[in-house]
């Protein structure tokens, strides 16, 4: 591997750093209760909650650090935190 002059990097490097493994709890979304308001995606500090084709939302667990902000903000309590087995 050659070093790029000036320590320059092409975009997309952060995507290779999958931070999901740092999590203790993961969010579990219930699309039946979801009213598709999108607050969860708006507050997610990782920006890793995406809209599905049905208009509900789901997290990308490769990057979700399990902070639980989506649970806090959900007006319908359609998201809960679940401890992950390690």
């Amino acid at each position, binding site marked *: 591997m050659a070093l790029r002059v000036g320590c320059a990097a092409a975009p997309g490097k952060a995507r290779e*750093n*999958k*931070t999901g*493994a*740092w999590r*203790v*709890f993961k969010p579990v979304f219930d699309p039946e209760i979801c009213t598709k308001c999108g607050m969860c995606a708006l507050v997610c500090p990782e920006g890793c909650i995406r809209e599905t084709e049905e208009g509900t939302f789901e997290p990308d667990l490769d990057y979700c650090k399990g902070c639980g902000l989506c649970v806090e903000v959900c007006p319908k309590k359609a998201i809960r935190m679940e*401890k992950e*087995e*390690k």
Partner: protein
Amino acid sequence: MTAAELIAYAAFEGGVFSQAFPAFGVERRGAPVQAFVRFSDEKVRLRSQIYEPDYIIVQDPTLIGDVDVFKGMKAGGIAIVNTEKSDFDSGVPEGVKVYTIDATTIALEELGVPITNTTLMGAFAAATGEIGLEPLEHALRSRFSGSMADKNVKAAERAYNLIGGAA
């Protein structure tokens, strides 16, 4: 780092020279930080990282597989692994004794947060015999105050007794 600091402090309280320091590693999957502890009857002068540990503590078992956490360990070494799986055996070198403990659950029950430093410290003390319960408690009480101290001491003691039974 807190676990390393507390272990080194407890060892110092127990009457030896000790040193604890972190290594802020490059960001990679699930490996944000490593910390090292040395203790010795003589003043510790060496400043390099530790490459052949006698003991290791694995706080997050998801590291195993991505990182060779047992690297450099020799026969007679002791590893303390935070995991729910009692049948854990992946990649353990010949002659290294592994103690598993579900420190996350203990920490959640005792402290209300999944911060496992003090629980694992109790497990380390019991598994290695390097630290007595008394200096351990002293270290915890000087680091934490009030009910936080009580809770952390309780978490450490629970782990100490759990591992103590197994050791």
